[in-house]
């Protein structure tokens, strides 16, 4: 049973990845009451998720220590509703939090974009980042044949990680063209840290076939995936595999910002120079403002944390560092933009909404996300369109026009509490 815990913070941070940790630490270091809430077992977000049995990332430890020294309160839970402005409800393991705040920093991160193709619902076909998270969580890939496919710099990092854990990486398929990858490489030259990372990855993956202009078109198998067919530079090739790690770059998590009424521009949360959203008391940092990677997330997080505590001039000192990282955001966006051919990946029978098993043919009878939701239940399952939303956005140019509370599935008791909170107290 849930117990209700009411807490008040000067600054509340939602999301415990790099941006959230940096925001909370900078805000707490000036002595105000700061809370940071995340739904994972430990802070660090996806990028600093630690491997089972391995030491946490040094940078993650460093920020965790800063949070501890500054007295920020770390809560584990998932925000699902705003019962009134200035209050958020979150569900923890056995508690319900009502979190009151003066200023809010949204650092909700990003998720992978998935594209449907025949067979993509088979077990052992996971996201690229998803597969890495699973191995970090104890899944053994020793001696397993893994194909890594999709788009984005994550593919190389995941392939190298899986290889270090004993997987045989059969092939890496990147949908982007060689020329856009080459341009991306040139853009990276302006970021010495990223060049070093790139060279390291290239060394580790020297023996692994890498194909640009390539993507999966079908997967098959009985109880789980056994084979994947890839379009490799225009030629079809069937590959035997135990796992397919497949993600098409990242999409920002903007559901909570949308629920709170923050303005969205081109799929990202609009933020000003101080990382302030269209709502004066709400700031946003990291991937929700545009996919830009961990270095940018740390700078944006710090700016948001400083600005949320009124230290604008200190925040301004970080503007130049942020500017230096901006070209990387644009380069990422250009290099890994999805090619239009991928719109023909799903066949009419392909399931697009995995929660409700809605097939592509029934979606094509509709002209909007809203209409399809009402008529087919697409996006009405527990993921609430987080998987099929970005897919239909790409395939059919549909826009998820609105979100509804709760933004994550919540327990019935939590929803009942929500009702009680809404009623005037006697």
């Amino acid at each position, binding site marked *: 049973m849930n117990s209700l815990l009411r807490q008040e913070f000067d600054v509340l941070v939602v999301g415990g990845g790099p941006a959230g940790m940096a925001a909370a630490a900078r805000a707490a270091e000036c002595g105000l009451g700061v809370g940071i809430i995340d*739904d*994972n*077992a430990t802070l660090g977000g*996806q990028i600093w998720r630690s491997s*089972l*049995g391995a030491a946490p990332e040094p940078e993650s430890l460093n920020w965790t220590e800063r949070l501890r020294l500054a007295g920020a309160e770390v809560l584990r839970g*998932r925000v699902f509703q705003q019962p009134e402005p200035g209050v958020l409800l979150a569900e923890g393991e056995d508690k319900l939090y009502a979190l009151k705040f003066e200023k809010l920093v949204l650092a909700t991160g990003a*998720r*992978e974009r*998935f594209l449907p193709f025949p067979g993509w*619902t*088979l*077990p*052992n*076909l*996971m*996201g690229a*980042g*998803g*597969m*890495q*998270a*699973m*191995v970090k*969580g*104890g*899944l*053994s890939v020793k001696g397993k044949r893994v194909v890594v496919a999709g788009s984005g710099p994550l593919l190389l990092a995941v392939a190298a990680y899986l290889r270090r854990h004993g997987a045989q990486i059969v092939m890496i398929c990147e949908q982007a063209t060689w020329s856009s990858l080459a341009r991306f490489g040139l853009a990276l030259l302006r970021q010495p840290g990223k060049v070093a990372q790139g060279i390291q990855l290239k060394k580790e993956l020297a023996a692994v076939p890498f194909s640009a202009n390539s993507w999966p078109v079908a997967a098959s198998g009985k*109880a*789980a995936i056994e084979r994947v067919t890839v379009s490799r530079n225009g030629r079809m090739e069937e590959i035997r595999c135990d796992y397919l790690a497949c993600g098409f770059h990242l999409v920002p998590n903007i559901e909570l910002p949308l629920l709170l009424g923050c303005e969205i521009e081109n799929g990202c949360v609009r933020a000003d120079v101080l990382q302030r959203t269209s709502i004066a008391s709400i700031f946003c940092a990291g991937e929700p403002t545009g996919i830009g990677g961990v270095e940018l997330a740390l700078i944006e997080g710090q700016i948001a944390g400083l600005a949320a505590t009124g230290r604008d001039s200190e925040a301004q000192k970080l503007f130049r560092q942020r500017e230096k990282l901006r070209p990387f955001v644009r380069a990422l966006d250009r290099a890994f933009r999805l090619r239009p051919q991928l719109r023909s990946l799903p066949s009419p029978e392909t*399931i697009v909404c*995995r*929660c*409700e*098993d809605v097939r592509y043919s029934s979606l094509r009878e509709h002209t909007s996300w809203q209409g399809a939701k009402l008529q087919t239940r697409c996006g009405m*399952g*527990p*993921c609430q369109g*987080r*998987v099929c939303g970005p897919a239909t956005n790409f395939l059919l140019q549909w826009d998820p026009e609105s979100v509804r509370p709760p933004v994550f*599935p919540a327990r019935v008791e939590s929803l009942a509490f929500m009702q009680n909170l809404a009623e005037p107290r006697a």
Partner: protein
Amino acid sequence: MPDQLRVTVNGTEIVVPPGTTVAAAIVLAGQACRTSVGGEPRGPLCGMGICYECRAAIDGSPHRPSCQVLCAHGMEIRTDE
């Protein structure tokens, strides 16, 4: 903390190191996480608590995103309910 944790997946015991997620334990046990509304077996997809494909009953509590729950000694995991 013990070196190894014993958990059961649909009644079959498996041994995993501490820090293993329930989703990883289910895949290691060779099981699907759930059956879709159309009757397909499904396994973990996103690994980060977004897609709910890995949801399973953990110690009697249904529909838990198993990739976000760590195994504990004696845990009962069911994917066949």
